[in-house]
């Protein structure tokens, strides 16, 4: 299987004045196309920090990262933004939909803004993605009139709009009730299987982790083991 993400020796040290916090101490991550991988670890172990770095939202103190065959360490801010737009999808704990736009417009936004408008093809793709997440009938609803679970599904559709090589999700079900969380998870699994989209999902939820192909566990800023799911989430 071809590699989607290859990170080597990622180190992240936060500096606040004289105080230094070494959050990541040399992390290697490899993701193959079509994988659904859980990123687990205790609170404060650096999961979100790692996702931000892999999602090009944060520059690491050290480390090499290659995504979809391209070295991304040397890119300037503009190129990183363009790269995020075209190659990466994001789902966060909070949906972060744009409240003044409809579900369809929210989904199409990542494609429409750089292109200067919503083309008929974009609309078609946005509608089919909404159909995919089970919200075809809510396409023209303002984002504010959707339920929490619906919003998160719209956010997933938005993350998929530009056919990303990698979707990065930070606790996508963290804010949802059990039933909605199940739906969102089913959806990601489905998209992963059917569209061969690669997912890296950070989660505290054992159900979520259990449904992934494999898990990456962070302990004290290092990857403890990549395994078959036999490691408990509460292990340190």
């Amino acid at each position, binding site marked *: 299987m071809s590699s989607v993400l290859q990170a080597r020796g990622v180190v992240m040290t936060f500096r606040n004045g004289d105080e230094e916090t070494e959050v990541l101490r040399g992390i290697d991550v490899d993701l193959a196309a079509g994988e659904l991988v859980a990123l687990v670890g205790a609170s404060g172990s650096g999961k*979100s920090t790692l996702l*931000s770095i892999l*999602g090009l*939202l*944060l520059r690491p103190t050290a480390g090499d990262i290659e995504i979809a065959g391209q070295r991304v360490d040397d890119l300037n801010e*503009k190129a990183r*933004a*363009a*790269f*995020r*737009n*075209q190659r*990466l*999808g*994001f789902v*966060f704990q*909070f949906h*972060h939909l*744009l*409240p*003044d*736009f409809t579900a369809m417009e929210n989904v199409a*936004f*990542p494609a*429409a*803004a*750089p*292109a*200067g*408008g*919503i083309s008929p093809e974009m609309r078609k793709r946005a509608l089919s993605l909404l159909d995919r997440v089970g919200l075809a009938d809510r396409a023209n609803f303002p984002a504010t009139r959707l339920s929490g679970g619906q919003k998160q599904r719209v956010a997933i559709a*938005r*993350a998929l709009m530009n056919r990303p090589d990698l979707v990065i999700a*930070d606790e996508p079900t963290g804010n949802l009730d059990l039933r909605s969380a199940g739906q969102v998870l089913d959806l990601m699994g489905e998209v992963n299987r059917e569209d061969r989209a690669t997912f890296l999902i950070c989660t505290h939820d054992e159900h979520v982790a259990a449904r992934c192909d494999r898990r990456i566990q962070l302990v004290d800023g290092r990857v403890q083991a990549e395994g078959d799911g036999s490691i408990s989430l509460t292990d340190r």
Partner: protein
Amino acid sequence: MFALKVARRYLTSNPAQTVLLVTGVALGVTVFIFITALIEGLAVRLTDQVTANSAHVTLEPPTRLAEILPGDPAVRTEGVALVSTFQRRQIRSWRSTAELITRQPGVSALSPQISGNAFLVKGESVQPVSVTGLEPEGLDAITPITPNLVSGQGALGADGLLIGTQLAEDLGLTAGQPVLLRTDRGGERLLTVRGIYKTGLQSLDSRVAFLSLQTARPLFDLPEGVTNIEIKLDDPGRAREVAEFLAGATGLRATPWQDKNLNLEDALEAQGRTGTLIQIFSLISIIIGVASALVLSAYRRRSEVGIMRAFGISGAFIVAVFMLQGLLIGLAGGLLGCVSGYGLCTFLASLTDAEGNAPLPIAPERGGYVAVLILTTIGAVLASAFPARSASRIDPLEAIQQ
């Protein structure tokens, strides 16, 4: 353009706030227009008053080099071409000059005059006056006197005199009464006040007396010539170029009305500066209003903007969204302000006092509409630059982690 759509959506998402903001801008624009129309109207009114009652170009004999009295020890006279001081300064060939001037396009009237200083003596009271001797049929050519008569009549005759109300009051004169005129040339004659006029111009009403050219000749010892030729033009605005031309053509000294009313020019300039100051302040208040509203809006939307940045929307797009909001607000407020400013000015201009005069000399058509619309729009766009820039620099992580 998608950024425009986003900008519009942002503005319409909070209609109350947007309406308030646009109204504020419109108010500033209205103030701008009001003050512009007022200052311009005032200038027009003052200028009209002056140009309606006085000559647009005055022709006089050229200034002589040496009017210095020889023998004055304080003045070195060597090398100065002395011209007899006994020679009167006058325009001898005024008939041919007048003919030449009449042929010029744009000249609407002309009046050859003998002007000089004199005293009016009535019993114990003596008043200095500026005497104007003119052709009786051309009495109203330069200054409309006949229409402004409040008593008596305008026929000058051989011994007639016309004076203003103020002067008449000072001397206790009424129409039909005799008065002694004593000129600075030593001429003296008993004349009759034929009529009393009131032009509203202080100097005319208190210090000028009109009589006929023929009456003036012996009094000022000028049997043939005149001292000055007064000219009226169709367009007072062309006075400078006409004066320049006539000076060249006649060899006489030609003075446009602007140069004789330097006070007016100063006053208009001072007024203009006051107006400019108020205009600048109204523009500044517009800019501050728009900037603060957009700074708040950018702050409220920073998580939204952060998320756009996270999925890779360019900083330029975010800048465009906010600057387009500024543009839309500026245009809407500017247009609305133009309409309300024009409405206000037209209303104020239509007001009249008991005498049927407009109390405010507003010129609604001179509100500077295009200028204020352009300035407001540019100002609003500039005002949005700072919030736009700061919005485009929001760190996506900040938005996600909140």
